[in-house]
């Protein structure tokens, strides 16, 4: 098994390996590939939006297509790019950081990935027949009246990928609670593991609201119910509530892992332990806790009443406190540190001011009275791009540079990395900074065109030029990946002189991760061994057989079943013959579940001899 990895294998064998894998590292890489693909797709959509807005009354694309473009850009970037890219990193890194050999439920992990991926593919297949066009928030009653099947694709696609995300969240929770290495107490866990933990809690509590909302939407659109139809006694505001009860925690699902990534990178390259570790953990929990009672700040103009608006406004502004704690702790970690500035660190240093600007406009928007002015203008667009691009995308790119050597055994090229950073960074601020002012001047979001000589021309032109810079930055990053894969410098186990457990094993790690469970003696275990020990992690157990899970094709087959059934659900309103797809798809899915339940699979053992043979 493990000797096979050293031999050169054919393309078919590698493909089969990835299709059937339950290894958290390979699932993580699959998440990165899937998320990366959708990120490029979403980026292309963004570029088309910006080209449409380059001049007043442009007709690069039609109004209907523009609506589809903005809807798919938002949906793709949030659900299919940012979330999976972060889940990929969590999948790869978190078990290594806590000294585990896999996640708690490897089969479920693989199933989670395939569900996300098939949901994304389903959603994007709608491009051929008409994509969803009711905005990424899909507000009723607009979404109920949207003709064609676009919104149905939105509902079924997100339902599938949401189920995958939810089971991954549960998986991470169980892994962190039960599979930490000896000595890895909660308060010795690296911050990225902590944020994975808290993010998973948020996923567990927030995604059911989306699931419920999507089910109601599905029944309203396909089976004639009237949950959101005011004319028949429904209430369209309920969709907004359900969506944002999910949607606001979702933005913390995105930003908390980003905070975790920066909390790993800053101590490593500042050569200091993280300042205020306990406060950082506390702040993470505070953000998660408050994150559940602020959703109505997206709905200030709905007319919930002054009392409700005030409560949600105050809760919203309160979130600035734990976030501020984090910002100051990062600054104080940098203070007096011996700082190395490379690509990963550049993204990190750029994140701090960029995200702080986004945070401040967030507090501005959080003021209910002022929000009446900002609502649905480009000010909002500028705000959430500052937090999501300036926070999450910067974090993902920083994490790529930081963990790339661990994941692929090669170090990303520094020169190309810096070029990508500077072009993207400049482009990002060009694109979005000016949008604050466009918004304040009254440019509404989601509009197809704007008129001449209203003071919006130059701003939009600058914004579009910025988008070209960002595109160039991403292309350079892609070139960097190809260049590194062919000619990149081979990475040692610990290329950054880092602090946490994942750097104590080979790059890339063996598929069982740790030959012997590591003994953790404190926070930053590798750093402790470097400064107080012999630089090697002490094993917590004698060398013995390792029990590993078996690969399985069932998750993929199960997912294909659900995929076919979803397609059937979308089209059965047109013709009852499509019900065959529903029943057939469900039969495949439930059949695979049955096989999984009835067939015992005890996994395999890696013998002691094999492990000794691989001794380094």
């Amino acid at each position, binding site marked *: 098994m493990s000797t096979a990895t050293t031999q050169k294998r054919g393309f078919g064998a590698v493909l089969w390996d990835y299709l059937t894998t339950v290894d958290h590292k390979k699932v993580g890489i699959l998440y990165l590939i899937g998320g990366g693909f959708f990120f490029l797709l979403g980026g292309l959509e963004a570029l088309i939006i910006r080209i449409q807005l380059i001049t007043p009354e442009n007709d690069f694309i039609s109004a209907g297509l523009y609506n589809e473009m903005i809807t798919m850009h938002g949906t793709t970037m949030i659900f299919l790019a940012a979330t999976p890219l972060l889940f990929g990193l969590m999948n790869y890194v978190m078990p290594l950081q806590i000294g585990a050999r896999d996640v708690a439920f490897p089969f479920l992990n693989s199933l989670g990935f395939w569900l996300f991926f098939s949901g994304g593919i389903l959603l994007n297949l709608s491009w051929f027949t008409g994509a969803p066009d009711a905005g990424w928030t899909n507000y009723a009653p607009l979404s109920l009246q949207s003709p064609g099947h676009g919104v149905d694709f939105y509902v079924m696609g997100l339902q599938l990928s949401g189920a995958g995300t939810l089971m991954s969240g549960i998986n991470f*929770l169980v892994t962190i*609670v039960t599979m930490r290495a000896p000595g890895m107490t909660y308060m010795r866990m690296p911050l990225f593991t902590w944020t994975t933990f808290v993010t998973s*809690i948020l996923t*567990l*509590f927030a995604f059911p*609201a989306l699931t419920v909302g999507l089910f109601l939407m599905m029944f309203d659109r396909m089976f004639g119910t009237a949950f959101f139809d005011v004319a028949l006694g429904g*209430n369209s*505001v*309920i969709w907004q*509530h359900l969506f944002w*009860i999910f949607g606001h925690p979702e933005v913390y699902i995105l930003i908390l892992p980003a905070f975790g990534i920066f909390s790993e990178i800053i101590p490593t390259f500042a050569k200091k332990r993280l300042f205020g570790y306990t406060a950082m953990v506390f702040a993470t929990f505070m953000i998660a806790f408050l994150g*559940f*009672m602020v959703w*109505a700040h997206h709905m200030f103009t709905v007319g*919930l*009443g002054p009392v*409700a608006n005030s409560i949600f406004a105050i809760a919203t502004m309160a979130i600035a406190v734990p976030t501020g704690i984090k910002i100051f702790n990062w600054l104080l970690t940098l203070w007096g540190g011996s700082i190395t500035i490379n690509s990963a660190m550049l993204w990190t240093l750029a994140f701090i001011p960029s995200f702080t600007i986004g945070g401040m406009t967030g507090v501005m928007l959080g003021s209910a009275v002022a929000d009446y002015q900002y609502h649905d203008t480009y000010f909002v667009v500028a705000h959430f791009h500052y937090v999501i691009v300036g926070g999450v995308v910067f974090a993902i790119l920083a994490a790529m540079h930081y963990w790339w050597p661990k994941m692929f055994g090669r170090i990303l090229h520094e020169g190309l990395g810096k070029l990508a950073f500077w072009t993207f960074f400049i482009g990002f601020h060009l694109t979005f900074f000016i949008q604050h002012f466009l918004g304040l001047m009254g440019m509404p979001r989601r509009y197809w065109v704007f008129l001449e000589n209203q003071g919006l021309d130059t701003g939009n032109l600058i914004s579009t030029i910025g988008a070209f810079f960002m595109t160039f930055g991403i292309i350079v990053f892609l070139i960097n990946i190809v260049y590194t894969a062919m000619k990149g410098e081979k990475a040692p186990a610990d290329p950054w002189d880092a602090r946490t457990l994942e750097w104590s094993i080979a790059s890339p790690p063996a598929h069982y991760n740790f030959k012997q469970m590591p003994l953790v003696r404190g926070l930053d275990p590798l750093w402790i061994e470097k400064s107080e020990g012999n630089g090697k992690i002490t094993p917590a157990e004698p060398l013995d057989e390792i029990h590993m899970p078996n690969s399985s094709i069932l998750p993929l087959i199960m997912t294909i079943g659900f995929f076919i059934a979803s397609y059937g659900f979308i089209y059965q309103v047109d013709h009852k013959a499509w019900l065959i797809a529903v029943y057939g798809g469900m039969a495949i899915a439930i059949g695979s579940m049955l096989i999984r339940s009835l067939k015992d699979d005890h996994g395999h053992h890696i013998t002691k001899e094999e492990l000794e043979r691989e001794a380094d």
Partner: protein
Amino acid sequence: MTENPNTSKINSFQKEKNRDEMRKQIITFALMIFFTMIAFFAVMMGTSSTFVIPLILILAVVQVGFQFYYFMHMKDKGHEVPAALIYGGIFVTALVILTFVAITWW
């Protein structure tokens, strides 16, 4: 699994603990059946619904508590994290219900 498999005899301390556990389980089980019977009789006797509905809800909450703490072992050591998560979930749900009742339906 973690116990030493070589000792076939369970020591007396363990035995006493098991007996104690069993007694608790049976008492809880009996109580739960008793609660269910109360709920049934309350409905059968035709008492006013303003009294019966809260009564049934309270009994249901107590039964859920028994279920979690006694049958699913939440009272035992090592269940702190699941307990915290369950309470977190209850908190979030309560918040959502409160908001819906207060600003949407009321």
